[in-house]
């Protein structure tokens, strides 16, 4: 058993209207991975932001190697040997990969001139260690979100810290990248680093973590050895009750076509043809960069179509903007809630109603009472945890932000709902609630296109599955036929071609 390196003791923190942390303690041990678990809004990220000096604690102590420390700001934390990979990407988009990795710690020669080659070389080594193929001289906004996440991890590694915190690092990664991240974590363990690992994916927790600290509603529930726990027990600690079946798949009578896409071709996708029936959930699987999001956005009217046709309920449609798509009953929920999904500076209520303000129009102005009532309904229905509807969305926890984005899409009452990574960052209980929502949509005779990198979710909730690779459909499977091997096979075949 490893020596205790980090100890956070009796930490409390309040925000206006919320007690985010109430007397919470956390330890991290040398050569071990400590999982930090809890529902959305339990206070995990807040605790880690206190550790990294983003927030100041109201009370409590932080001990590093037995000595009390006072973390002033993230830079100070890094100097003390604490590295954090934050839940939301913190890279500067128009700088290059290596510039981001060395941001604030640029290497210079004796004339204060940047030693670019040296930084590029070191970046290359770091990225190779993570087994990702990224040219460090590319600008961050030119690479995929998954790769951006890997750059963020590389930056944390480059600090050579003794405590490394990872706040949902695998959120935007696909299985392959997750595997290489886990290899790195195992390496770090042999180097006697202490790691704190936050994730809503319990499978990962069992794979790499040694212990778990569980929070609920800002309070410490327990610290346990992973080897003494099973999935149900963890869920029970997190949620306070047991959950039944993880994927509540609902068989529905699928009937006529709602959406038909024929030979769709543009800059991002080639020759895409598929149909979508009433009451159906169509899963789209593939690696990051397979063109799945681009396909969704093309149908949503964001990107122009070069060739091919889209039929909605038998009528040919051609949307010039998302506005037209929404008016005709197609809605898309982005995988990137921070930069595309939400207006973080606006409150919860205004975000939820942003796409459906026509519903609240009166002779003059908006019916704010009705708006309040309707958004309150959604807040309860999908359990958005927020002190009030006028809270700014940027102050919500990651998972609750995702729920706001989903509430916004549901309020438009779409016939076709395109969900891009719908459960990213969402806790086990809330996932279940979102799957129940899928079923409700099916029952109403509407349909869903679910783009997801989570294989179990794709297999568990889809009626039919399409596998994409590099902008092309590589195969289609019915629910009965589909297995993760078959899906991977289609992808690998795509890789070989």
């Amino acid at each position: 058993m490893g020596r205790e390196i980090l100890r956070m003791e009796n930490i409390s923190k309040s925000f206006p209207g919320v007690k985010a942390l109430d007397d919470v303690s956390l330890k991290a041990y040398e050569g071990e991975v400590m999982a930090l678990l809890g529902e959305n809004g339990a206070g995990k990220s807040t605790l880690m932001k206190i550790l990294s000096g983003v927030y100041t604690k109201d009370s409590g102590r932080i001990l590093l190697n037995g000595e009390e420390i006072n973390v002033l700001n993230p830079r100070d934390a890094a100097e003390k040997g604490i590295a954090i990979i934050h839940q939301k990407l913190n890279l500067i988009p128009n700088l290059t990969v290596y510039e981001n990795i060395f941001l604030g710690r640029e290497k210079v020669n004796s004339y204060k001139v940047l030693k670019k080659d040296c930084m590029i070389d070191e970046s290359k080594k770091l990225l190779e260690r993570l087994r990702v193929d990224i040219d460090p001289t590319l600008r961050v906004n030119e690479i995929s979100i998954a790769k951006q996440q890997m750059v963020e991890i590389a930056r944390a590694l480059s600090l050579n810290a003794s405590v490394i915190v990872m706040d949902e690092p695998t959120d935007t990664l696909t299985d392959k990248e997750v595997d290489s991240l886990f290899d790195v974590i195992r390496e770090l363990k042999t180097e006697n680093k202490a790691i704190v690992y936050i994730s809503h994916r319990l499978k990962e927790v069992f794979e790499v973590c040694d212990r778990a600290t569980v929070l609920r509603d800002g309070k410490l529930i327990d610290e346990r050895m992973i080897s003494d726990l099973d999935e149900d027990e963890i869920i029970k600690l997190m949620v306070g009750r047991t959950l039944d079946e993880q994927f509540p798949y609902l068989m529905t009578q699928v009937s006529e076509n709602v959406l038909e896409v024929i030979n769709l071709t543009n800059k991002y996708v080639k020759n895409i043809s598929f149909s979508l029936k009433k009451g159906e959930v169509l899963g789209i699987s593939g690696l990051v960069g397979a063109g799945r999001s681009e396909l969704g956005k093309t149908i949503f009217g964001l990107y122009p179509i070069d060739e091919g046709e889209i039929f909605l309920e038998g009528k040919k449609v051609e949307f010039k903007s998302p506005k037209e798509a929404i008016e005709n009953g197609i809605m898309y929920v982005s995988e990137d809630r921070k930069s595309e999904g939400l207006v973080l500076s606006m409150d919860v209520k205004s975000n939820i109603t942003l796409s459906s303000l026509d519903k609240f129009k009166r002779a003059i102005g908006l019916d704010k009472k009705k708006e309040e009532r309707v958004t309150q309904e959604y807040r309860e229905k999908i359990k958005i945890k927020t002190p009030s509807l006028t809270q700014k969305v940027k102050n919500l926890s990651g998972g609750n932000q995702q729920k706001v984005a989903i509430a916004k899409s549901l309020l438009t009452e779409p016939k076709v709902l395109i969900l891009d990574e719908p459960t990213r960052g969402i806790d086990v209980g809330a996932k279940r609630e979102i799957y129940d929502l899928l079923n409700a949509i099916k029952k109403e005779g509407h349909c869903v296109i679910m783009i997801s990198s989570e294989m179990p979710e794709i297999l568990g909730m889809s009626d039919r599955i399409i596998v994409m690779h590099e902008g092309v459909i590589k195969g289609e499977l019915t629910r009965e036929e589909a297995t993760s091997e078959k899906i991977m096979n289609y992808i690998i075949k795509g890789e070989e071609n």
Partner: protein
Amino acid sequence: MKTKLGKAKPLLGLILIIVVVSIISPNFLSKGNLLTVLRQTSINAIIAAGMTFVILTAGIDLSVGSILGFSGAICAYLLTNGTNVFISFLAAILVGALFGLFNGVVITKGKVQPFIATLATMILLRGATMVFTNGKPIAVKGESATKILRYIARGDILGIPVAVIMMVIIFAICYHILHNTKYGRHIYAVGGNEQAALLSGVNTDRVKMLAYMISGILASIAGIIVLARLSSAQPTAGDGYELDAIAAVVLGGTSLAGGQGAILGTIVGALIIGILNNALNLLDVQSYYQMIVRAIVILIAVLLDRKDKNK
């Protein structure tokens, strides 16, 4: 609670400045002087109201001063040639709307940065005004025209100057638009996160174009008031007004980054600037020193605001 206080911050600044000024110069609180302050503030406040829309979308409008000058000149020309008063006013407002729209189109369809696009319009219209007026003032003649202009400049309703009433009505309408309508929400959404707004079905180009149009319209209304006050169109009318308008918006707590702020802050900001100018005059401060004092006050006010936001 804290956010409420944060919103009231510009207001506290205003109260502070009123207290200080009335102590230094007791004349300040006389009814006559207060009405003068309001009357003088109205022009900047009306321009700043339009500027608030533009800044909330994360844009900027440098052309308002020139739009004011040009539409004033057009209006004066029409009036002098015996055109119906209301048609002349309408024409001036149309000119403002048109060039606002022009700004909007260049910015959204041409993808030119607002700073550059409106800078070009600013120079263009100043030049056009010079050409149109031949560099000389156009004095308004004709009985009905001078009568109505005098009414706008010096008339009052129940003791309140007409220009001030116009200002209040305009702010009431702007408040309604920004806080109670779909368009108002869209303004905040576009300024807060344009891509997210687009994906939420907001016609972001249209929202921005309208904002610049509103700014142009309000600048030309201010142009009519300026014309009324001088009873002639000066070729340099409105020169530099864009800066006072921007200062009023920022003093009112609206973020230049867009998406955050409120129109009520803008009127407070405009009042702070108006009172400051008035006080400096009452105290007989030389105009060159006035500039320095104004700059310092604006800087301090904005710095205080920033400090609060960083916490």
